[in-house]
Structures are given as structure tokens and as C-alpha cells.
């Protein structure tokens, strides 16, 4: 077997032995890193779940134009022609007050409420759908239509989707910022752990250098150790977030049942989880690199 492969195997084994020889210290480090990583991971999971929920809702701007009760047929016809002539309009759909009431009745929990009404309070309406990216046109149209004869109220229905989108964008930025900050924390934790390891093994390092160990040989076990520490911390974070998701899903399920919908947080896909573990190992490696570069060169045989 090649000497380099033997060196790597030896370093890997050494890291495992070090991990096993101080299991409580290793476990404590693992948990600290796990908690640090669980925060951005949990937030990422939450944002991606909301994002996936929001993406199932159409985001084309929609305008509901509610007509005044008893509006003149000529006004209604003129309005429809005007709506169809507007730029970016993809479709114009007339929703009669009867159809609107029937649709409302189908909504969970609304049938009982509606049955208590003596007459249909809903107006006739036009639902105007504009093309993607025409939010500004929707807002222009909303202001143009206000005050037009036969129109009682104009509402841009997709505004809330845009608000969720903006909120998600804010959430994503927060996840990135939090990830960056806590990644720094992980690098700092690994940096310090490796510094302590180097101090503990000072004699061994000194003797190894005296008998012909190269810098790479001395450094290698620390790199494996740092990577292992990062990956095991990442694994701990995945476990923590998974447990939190299981607990939250119970509550979400009960909450969703009240509204007749199925609410459930989805866990990370396997590929993303693997990527996350690799990222955690990389952060451990970076912390090790910085620590080893700073502290190992100071140990020279005397």
C-alpha cells in the first residue's frame, strides 16, 4: 500500500481514537456545534417550507372588480370591454353573486354562517388576471377603475402573495446572515478546540518532528479531527432540527385540522442533508486550518 494512503489511514484512525479517548469532551463539542448549526438550519427549513407553500399559489396579479348592486347593464358591458382592452390582461372572468355565494359555501366552516343570512350580500364581480411581472400595471388599473360608474370596490388580490414573497426574501436574507455569523462561530469553536488539542499533544508533535515527521504528517490528524468534529456537529444539528420538526408537526397537524387543511413541515431532502453535513465538515476543516497554521509552526523541537 502506498505510504501516503497509510499516513491518511493512520491519521483517520488517530482522530477516531482521540474522539473515543475523551468521549465527554467530544460529545460536548459536538452538542455546542450542533446547537450553533441547528439555528440557521431550522430557520432554513421553515423558510423553505413557507416558500414551497407560497409557490403553489398563483402569483400573477389578480384584480377583483366588485360591481354596485343593480348596476346598469350598459355600464357593465362597457366595463367588460374596457377591462379586456387593458394591456397585460390575460383573462377577464365574470363571477355572478350567486356563483360567489356558492363558492363561499364550499369553504370549510362557512356553510353554517351563510345559511343564517336572509339574502345574498355578495355583489357581481369581474376577476381580471394579468400576466406575470405586471404588478405595476395592476396597481395602475386599480387606481384607474376607482370611481368608474358601476364599480363599488376594486381589490388587488395578489398583493398578499407579494407581501409573502417579500417576507420570504427577508427570511432568506436572515438565514444567510445567521448562517454566515454562526458559521464563523463554528470556525471559532473548532479553532479553539484544535488549539487545545495541539497544546495537549505538544510533546508528541515535538518528538514526531525530531524523528522526521513532515508538517503535513503532523497536521493531517488535526484536519481529520476538525472535519469529524464539524460533521458530527452537523449530524447533531440535523437530529435536533428533525426532533423539533416532529414536535411542531403534531401541533401544526392539529391546527390545520381546525381549518380542514393539511399542514406539515417537510424535512430536508437526503441530498440537501448530505450537502449540509459536507458544509459542516468543511467549516470544521477551515477552523482547523486556521488553528494549525497559527499554532503548529510555533512548536519546534529543542
Amino acid at each position, binding site marked *: *500500500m502506498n505510504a501516503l494512503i497509510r499516513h491518511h489511514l493512520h491519521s483517520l484512525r488517530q482522530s477516531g481514537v482521540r474522539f473515543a479517548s475523551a468521549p465527554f469532551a467530544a460529545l460536548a463539542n459536538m452538542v455546542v456545534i450542533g446547537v450553533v448549526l441547528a439555528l440557521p438550519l431550522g430557520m432554513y427549513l421553515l423558510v423553505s417550507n413557507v416558500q414551497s407553500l407560497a409557490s403553489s399559489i398563483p402569483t400573477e396579479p389578480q384584480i377583483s372588480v366588485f360591481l354596485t348592486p343593480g348596476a346598469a347593464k350598459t355600464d357593465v358591458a362597457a366595463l367588460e370591454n374596457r377591462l379586456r382592452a387593458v394591456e397585460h390582461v390575460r383573462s377577464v372572468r365574470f363571477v355572478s353573486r350567486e356563483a360567489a355565494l356558492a363558492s363561499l359555501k364550499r369553504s370549510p366552516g362557512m356553510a353554517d354562517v351563510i345559511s343564517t343570512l336572509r339574502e345574498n350580500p355578495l355583489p357581481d364581480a369581474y376577476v381580471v388576471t394579468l400576466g406575470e411581472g405586471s404588478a405595476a400595471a395592476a396597481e395602475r388599473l386599480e387606481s384607474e377603475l376607482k370611481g368608474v360608474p358601476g364599480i363599488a370596490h376594486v381589490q388587488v388580490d395578489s398583493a398578499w402573495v407579494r407581501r409573502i414573497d417579500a417576507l420570504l426574501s427577508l427570511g432568506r436574507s436572515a438565514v444567510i446572515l445567521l448562517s454566515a455569523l454562526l458559521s464563523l462561530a463554528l470556525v471559532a469553536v473548532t479553532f479553539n478546540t484544535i488549539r487545545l488539542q495541539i497544546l495537549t499533544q505538544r510533546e508528541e508533535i515535538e518528538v514526531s518532528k*525530531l*524523528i522526521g515527521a513532515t508538517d503535513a504528517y503532523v497536521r493531517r490528524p488535526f484536519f481529520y479531527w476538525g472535519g469529524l468534529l464539524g460533521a458530527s456537529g452537523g449530524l447533531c444539528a440535523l437530529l435536533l432540527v428533525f426532533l423539533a420538526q416532529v414536535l411542531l408537526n403534531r401541533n401544526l397537524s392539529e391546527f390545520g385540522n381546525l381549518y380542514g387543511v393539511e399542514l406539515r413541515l417537510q424535512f430536508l431532502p437526503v441530498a440537501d442533508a448530505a450537502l449540509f453535513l459536507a458544509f459542516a465538515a468543511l467549516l470544521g476543516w477551515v477552523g482547523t486550518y486556521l488553528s494549525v497554521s497559527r499554532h503548529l509552526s510555533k512548536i519546534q523541537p529543542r
Partner: protein
Amino acid sequence: MAQPIISFNNVSKRYPGGREALSNINFTVEAGEFVLLTGHSGAGKSTLLKLIPAIERASSGTILVNGQSISTLSGRGIPYLRRNLGLVFQDQKLLFDRSVFDNVILPMLVTGQSHAESTRRVRAALDKVGLLDRERANPVALSGGEQQRLCIARAIVNRPTILIADEPTASLDDEYADAIMEMFRSFNQVGVTVLIATHDRDLIAHSSPRVVHLQRGRVLDKATA
């Protein structure tokens, strides 16, 4: 005539702060020689020995080991130089968190030898120094003489061409000291060049065909050097 395996040419060593430990040293050691480096404490023996594996670097002059210039050797080249040297230190530098066997196998791990070959050579080295039956013991459980023999086993396990020892018999009683010196002689008889620093007068009187005497950082008798 044998080729010099170690050669010092006008070598001086000045420590930071201005103290001159070695001044204009000139001497050679030929392959297969057994040389004692003597002198009082502070004469510069340890400094001179440390220059050979580049633990210390010379302030001026040229040092050649196995034909390789140590003065111009880069940091990356030093580990490969040390792999050809067997070093026995005054303070032993044993690792007390592992067994006798694991101390001796360290140079084999560094050079990336196979496990089977390493085990075989470690046992052979321990056998040579009479510690084979103590391979699982912790060095802390060994006597002073046994610890010194353990250092020698670690120094010879990689089959070095040069064996360098700094005061290997210091703090040992006469019986142990004789046994240790006998060991160095036996290695020398199979072709290993041996260079030992000592200030033990009895040892000097009884052991070596060649003595290099240092005084205040200078080789005292050029005729013997």
C-alpha cells in the same frame, strides 16, 4: 580512505542575545567511525549535536551530512534528513501516554512503513536492547537504564546510517552506563556511524578510539579532530 559522513567547515553558532556557543568548528566524522565528543558543561557539545539534525541552524560555516549541505537545507528537507539519523536525547523525549511498543513504532509510522514490517522491525529493535518482554509496558514503569535503552530502540528502528546520542549515560549508574555503551559499540560494529556527546571521564578513558574535545565552543585538539 573512508569518506566523511559528517563534515563541519568553519562552523559558528551564535544564539540570539550574542552568546557564541560554537566558534569556527572544523572536524569530520568518517563513515563507520565511533566518535566521542567531550567537554565540560557549556562547552558546546549539545549545540554541535543539534546542528547535525538541523534542530539548531549554524550562524556561519558549512555542515555536510551524507554529502548534503545542512546550511542550505530548506525547512521541507529537514524531516527527510532526520529520517536517516538515529537520535538519542539527553532528556529522552519519551511519550508516557503510550506503551513501549508504540514509542518505538513512531519513526516507522512517520516513514509510512506497512504495519507488518513496522511490527517486525520494532520487535527486532526491542530485542536488540533487551526490552522485548516489556513491549506492552508503559515507559513510566521502566527503570532509568531501561528508558535509555528504549530511546536507543526508537533511534535504531529506522536503520539509520548515523547514530547521535547526547549524554546517553548521564544519571545512570556504572553498570547501566557500560551496558548502554556496549550497545552503541555493537551498532558501530555493523557499520553505523556513532557520535556521542559525554562528559563522563570513565567512559572517555575506556571506550573510544577517537575523542573530539570541545572547550568554550572550540575544538581543543585539532590533531585528534
